[in-house]
């Protein structure tokens, strides 16, 4: 049976991985929904409002970006612009090399995954340590994150304990407290020895130049407070117009991402250490990364740039729950990734053109998205784009003949009658691959083609006859 790559991946996924992903996503989704409904009279209205604010942002980047550069610079930060991944990597390297830095501690940032920063820095002799516990485990396992908020949602604690043991972080012990304590002890020393710290930003406020970073582990606070140099890597779409917008967005982000009313740590950063401040980095750099975003902005799927990377869409997605994030062959998995990854792939669009098809178009993602992105519509647009670009579509019957049939009523009616044959031929012998795929796990109802139309006609006839008799 010829099926799509993601369907094939699903067949190879070990059941315990699927179970980990399913349990984790389902629990967070259900908690999120309860929390939002309990805390707000009309959470949907909040999602719509937040969507409008972000839509405003992406449509006004041309004025908001210069504004934020001006505010950041006034606050003492240095602003850099990176058109693509290579430029972003070069900026980071140049900053580090200028300072003679060889040890970088890194909080979680998806952009750094996107530009494949860590291997690049390692190749230039710079140690690059992930300090988010999940990302750290991904790093020591030479694995990839499978969720944008919970990178190791596909692992259970036994696997984690094993890799800790393998990496010299103590004898096997799978108690979560022990794992966390060991990671913390290991990292404390690293923070103190680091030359530079890197974070992302969940929001950057245009009016104030304020960077906002939310975490639950406090690792971002260490990463930006202990070393002398702070580098923030930020996608150009991460802006919010005003400080007051944070009220809406912080409320929605924590609930959507981790089903919390507020994350444990929320950092507001206005620049490097100012005169008179006792502590903090002496240098702060903000690197704004485009890497294909302006092309997305120019296209028909620009709403995806509203995304605040909360992960709610993957938590609710029935396909993601069955296949895990690795099935998407991309930094961004799940519904958001199925839209964003092919778009950010640029010239390699065709390599990712199957991702938008990995959806039953159920719309659950749109229903939970805190910025109300019409993800199913965007998936559909990308399917159309893929078809026009000549993307392969294994298992899919061609639609041309069907369209011909469905626009010729006479042929259609004949086919309805002729379809009775289906009842007499075993599905395995019907030379249509789609039929085999259907029949492998389901029966087909008995063919009743034309029966409804016949019922109508007979009724019509009876009516005329009774009418004639009456007359």
């Amino acid at each position, binding site marked *: 049976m010829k099926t799509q790559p993601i369907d094939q991946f699903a067949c190879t996924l070990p059941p315990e991985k699927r179970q980990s992903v399913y349990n984790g996503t389902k629990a967070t989704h259900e908690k999120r929904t309860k929390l939002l409904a309990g805390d707000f009279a009309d959470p949907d209205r909040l999602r719509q409002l937040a969507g409008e604010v972000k839509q405003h942002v992406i449509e006004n980047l041309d004025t908001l970006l210069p504004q934020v550069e001006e505010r950041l610079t006034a606050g003492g930060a240095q602003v850099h612009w990176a058109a693509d991944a290579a430029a972003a990597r070069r900026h980071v390297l140049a900053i580090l090399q200028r300072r003679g830095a060889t040890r970088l501690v890194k909080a979680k940032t998806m952009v750094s995954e996107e530009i494949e920063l860590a291997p690049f820095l390692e190749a230039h002799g710079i140690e690059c340590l992930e300090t988010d516990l999940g990302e750290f485990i991904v790093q020591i396992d030479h694995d990839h994150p499978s969720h944008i908020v919970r990178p190791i949602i596909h692992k259970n604690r036994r696997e984690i304990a094993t890799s800790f043991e393998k990496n010299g972080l103590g004898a096997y012990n799978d108690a979560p407290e022990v794992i966390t304590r060991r990671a913390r002890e290991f990292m404390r020393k690293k923070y103190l020895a680091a030359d530079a710290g890197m974070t992302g930003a969940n929001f950057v406020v245009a009016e104030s130049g304020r960077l906002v970073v939310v975490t639950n582990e406090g690792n971002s606070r260490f990463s930006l407070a202990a070393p002398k140099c702070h580098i923030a890597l930020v996608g150009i779409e991460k802006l919010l117009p005003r400080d007051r917008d944070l009220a809406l967005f912080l409320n929605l982000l924590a609930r959507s991402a981790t089903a919390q009313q507020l994350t444990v740590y929320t950092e507001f950063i206005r620049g490097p250490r100012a005169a008179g401040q006792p502590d903090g980095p002496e240098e702060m750099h903000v690197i704004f990364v485009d890497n294909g975003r302006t092309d997305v902005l120019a296209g028909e799927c620009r709403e995806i740039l509203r995304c605040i990377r909360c992960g709610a869409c993957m938590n609710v997605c029935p396909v993601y729950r069955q296949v895990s994030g690795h099935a998407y062959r991309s930094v961004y998995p799940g519904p958001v990734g199925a839209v964003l990854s092919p778009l950010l792939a640029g010239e390699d669009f065709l390599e990712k053109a199957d991702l938008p098809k990995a959806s039953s178009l159920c719309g659950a993602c749109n229903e939970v998205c805190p910025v109300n992105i019409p993800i199913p519509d965007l998936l559909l647009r990308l399917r159309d784009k893929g078809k026009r670009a000549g993307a392969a579509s294994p298992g899919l019957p061609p*639609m041309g003949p069907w369209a011909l049939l469905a626009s010729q009523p006479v042929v259609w009616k004949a086919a309805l009658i002729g379809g009775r044959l289906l009842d007499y031929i075993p599905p395995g012998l019907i030379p249509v691959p789609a039929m085999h795929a259907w029949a492998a796990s389901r029966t087909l109802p008995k063919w009743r083609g034309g029966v409804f139309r016949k019922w109508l006609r007979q009724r019509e006839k009876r009516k005329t006859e009774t009418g004639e008799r009456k007359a």
Partner: protein
Amino acid sequence: MTTIERKPPLGKKVQLMATCLCDAFYDDAAIATVQVLEHLGLTVEFPEAQTCCGQPAFNAGDWNASRRVVRHLLRTFKSELPVVVPSSSCAAMVFHGALLAFEHERDLPEVEQLARRTWELADFLVNGLGVTSWPGRFDGAIAFHRSCHTRGTRSAEAAATLMRSIPGVTLVEFGEAEQCCGFGGTFSVTFPHISEAMGRLKLQHLRAAQPQFLVGVDTSCLMHLSGLAEKEGRPVQHRHVAQVLRDALKNGGLLAA
């Protein structure tokens, strides 16, 4: 879902879009739809030339092929009458999907005209006609699957309202009700393993609630779920919501023969 503002139905006549699945497999759901509408005093017109709504090609990404079918739909249903569809999915194709597919087409206004008068059955009964309770009798515990295409519309609430009002009906709750059944049109054959896994999960939740009937507003979801169940050797009794409404009339002696 961005949908278009609907015109309130005036007059006593409607057009029926029976859907290709009713045409091929579920004739009784279409018959029940006619009987339900006629019970309310409406005249039902069935444009003979109708085929399909164009959704298979639309979802498959072949928007060219889809537009071809939608244009046939436009010709077939050309009128000012409300169009009633016993399927949230086909209805949404008309009032949402087609609008996307025709965004840059010259005949978009015609698509909009059709979109403005197209209704899913339960939505039409409750929000179009203002019917909020249903007479007769239907004995049984019903698990009502809210098809995904009812998201962002008032169809699911409408169907639940009607069924809850029927003497004898109890609606049973089941786990993960917001999750898709795994059908998804061409998805069910291009991603058969994922589709199957989704369907099994749905069946598991449904069976735990021990309903007598699985009821839905779309025959497509019912076809998928009942097909899976039957293949397992554990068939489920399933009904389209129109059949429940019609059977209630029948059981209450309210349906003219």
